[in-house]
């Protein structure tokens, strides 16, 4: 079977779910005639028509709220943020209305909010964000952030079928750079399960999304140059976190690095470190270390963006410190 890109895998999932379930519909800015800023929804309008592929006004509160209302009535909306950065405009309605609907009012709210996320693309401060930290903090929401084409498809299908609201972050750096074969049939990746991206025995890197590839590059270099065996865990789901997978790799290697592209303070690495600390403190032969972006808005000049974001040499340096500890 031919390989398709991360972006095509997401599109394939949308087509399959639209086909499978008439309650699934798309809503967003410029997703119809134009097919979306990154063409993720291209072809959906032609096939399913205006009533199921809705071009909306520039109203993130409006479309997230409308999706919630439709979801209460049994529809399964998929909302596109043209760039995930604009999810900030819907922060109130997502965290206060959507996240609490089932708990406070017994209203099911099955919906997906998806959009191009992340940096390494010279997008500047408002087209490069990784907003997961602000949402994993909200009980009632689920958050996924795939790194491979197969996971992108399988998680999208799982997200659309999930009975709660799932935030689906798509890394725009991976959209066309990453390809993979799609498993045959109705391919579903369960939400809440991490993936071992690379088996190893000396050191662990716990990460997700674009930095999975930084970790893999660093792992190969350490194997080549230091003869160290590095395990790479791709979380895939950020809420809920796969505690079992985290504990398992800690117990296996006893030396853990948490790596993410998001800024450092208040980033999800803190939560992961706290959980490791609580669940397997005695298994640690070294402190859990964090490699993250620097705590600044992301500048767009290449020399600046490259400096602010975590790079492969950073991971190598950090892992060597862990090994030498």
């Amino acid at each position, binding site marked *: 079977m031919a390989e398709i890109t991360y972006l095509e895998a997401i599109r394939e999932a949308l087509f399959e779910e639209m086909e499978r379930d008439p309650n699934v519909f798309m809503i967003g800015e410029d997703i119809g005639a134009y097919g979306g800023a990154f063409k993720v929804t291209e072809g959906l309008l032609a096939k399913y028509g205006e009533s199921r592929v809705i071009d909306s006004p520039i109203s993130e509160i409006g479309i997230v709220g409308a999706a919630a209302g439709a979801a209460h009535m049994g529809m399964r909306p998929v909302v596109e943020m043209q760039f995930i950065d604009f999810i900030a405009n819907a922060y109130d309605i997502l965290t206060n*209305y959507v996240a609490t609907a089932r708990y406070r009012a017994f209203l099911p709210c099955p919906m997906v909010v998806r959009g191009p996320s992340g940096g390494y693309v010279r997008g500047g401060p408002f087209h490069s964000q990784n907003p997961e930290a602000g949402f994993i903090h909200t009980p009632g929401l689920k958050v996924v952030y795939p790194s491979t084409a197969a996971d992108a498809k399988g998680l999208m299908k799982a997200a659309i079928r999930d009975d709660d609201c799932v935030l689906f972050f798509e890394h725009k750096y991976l959209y066309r750079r990453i390809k993979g074969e799609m498993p045959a049939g109705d391919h579903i990746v369960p939400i809440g399960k991490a993936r071992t991206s690379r088996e190893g025995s000396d050191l662990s890197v716990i990460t997700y999304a674009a930095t999975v590839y930084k970790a893999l590059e660093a792992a190969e270099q350490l194997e080549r140059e230091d003869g160290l065996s590095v395990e790479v865990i791709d979380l895939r789901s950020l809420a809920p976190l796969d505690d079992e997978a985290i*504990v398992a790799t800690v117990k296996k290697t006893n030396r853990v690095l948490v790596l993410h592209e998001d800024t450092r303070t208040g980033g999800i690495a803190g939560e992961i470190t706290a959980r490791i600390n609580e669940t397997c403190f005695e298994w640690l032969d070294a402190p859990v270390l964090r490699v993250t972006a620097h705590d600044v808005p992301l500048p767009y000049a290449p020399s600046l963006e490259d400096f602010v974001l975590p790079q492969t040499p950073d991971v190598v340096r950090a892992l060597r410190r862990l090994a030498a500890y």
Partner: protein
Amino acid sequence: MARPRTGSVAPLTREQRLELYYWMRLTRSLEERLVNLYRQTKVVGGLFRSLGQEADAVGSAYALQQGDILSPLIRNLGSMLVKGATPVEILKQYMAKGDSPTRGRELNIHFGDTERGFIGQISPLGDMVPVMAGVTLSFKMRKEARVGLVYVGDGATSTGAFHEGINFAAVQKCPLVVVIENNGYAYSTPTSKQTLAKQLADKGIGYGIPAETADGNDVIATYDATKRAVDRARRGEGTSIVELMTYRRKGHAEHDNQSYVPEGEGDRWARENDPINRFILRLTNEGNATLRELAAVDARVVTEIDHATDLAELSGVPEPLDALVGIYAEPPAEQPLWFREGGRAAVEENERPEGWGSYDISGDV
């Protein structure tokens, strides 16, 4: 755009008018009962009154039919009653009982039932407008002849959520009626500090949708105006605004002493423009009912409320562990945290590495 819209509305029968009277009286008496319970500190949290606004709530909700859905605000107790919420539910909810509609999770009248046709509001103002845009979008997508109605106050019209929601509904031609209850104040803020618009119905022009202003203290006028908008929506002609002019006679909540209200303003409304008194006059003048008949309704209402109060008082408080149930469909419940009885003690229960306590960390690479 704000002249009365065409579209004739069938006059209400005597029975229907008496129903309206019943709902208005039930609303007022139930709130009076809540005031007593509040003074007895049996109400948990604040108490919000709709005194003097019963007509706008009841008359507008009465324009909907079975299958339609409305989204009430804090002063729409009457609308919820019309849609089938029961006094005992309201009382249990205000008293935070374990078997109240939200099992003690949400305050006052923040609860809903899409079967009966009302949806649970949240506090952040304006958010229900986009939500109801979506509810009615689903009606349109499924070609159901159902209509939605969302209430917003004069104050809530200043929110971004109101703007984005009503504009979206307008463009999508959702079968949605947006009722703006202009009761003169948002907490302490007069409508004149909320907007420069001469009337809130004028906002319809900016969204390219029809709008009508009606006397919200005249239950029949309220019903007629809302019914026109509802029929229009059901005919597939999309979203419209009904502005109901009324007055908030009590403070924002029971604790508010209304120091900011001009001397005598409230009394004048109570004296000259009480929606129930006005309706009584009309019912008797137009030969719909005698004062004795209306007194009988009032008596019936009191009995119902007494009965509901007795029932509500019987129920217990929520089971603490229920606080962890139902955040997600899956898992069905959260676990108590480790520092609680029954909680997982992560560290303690986690088995330790062999040789733990005896081996030398620094030596081990």
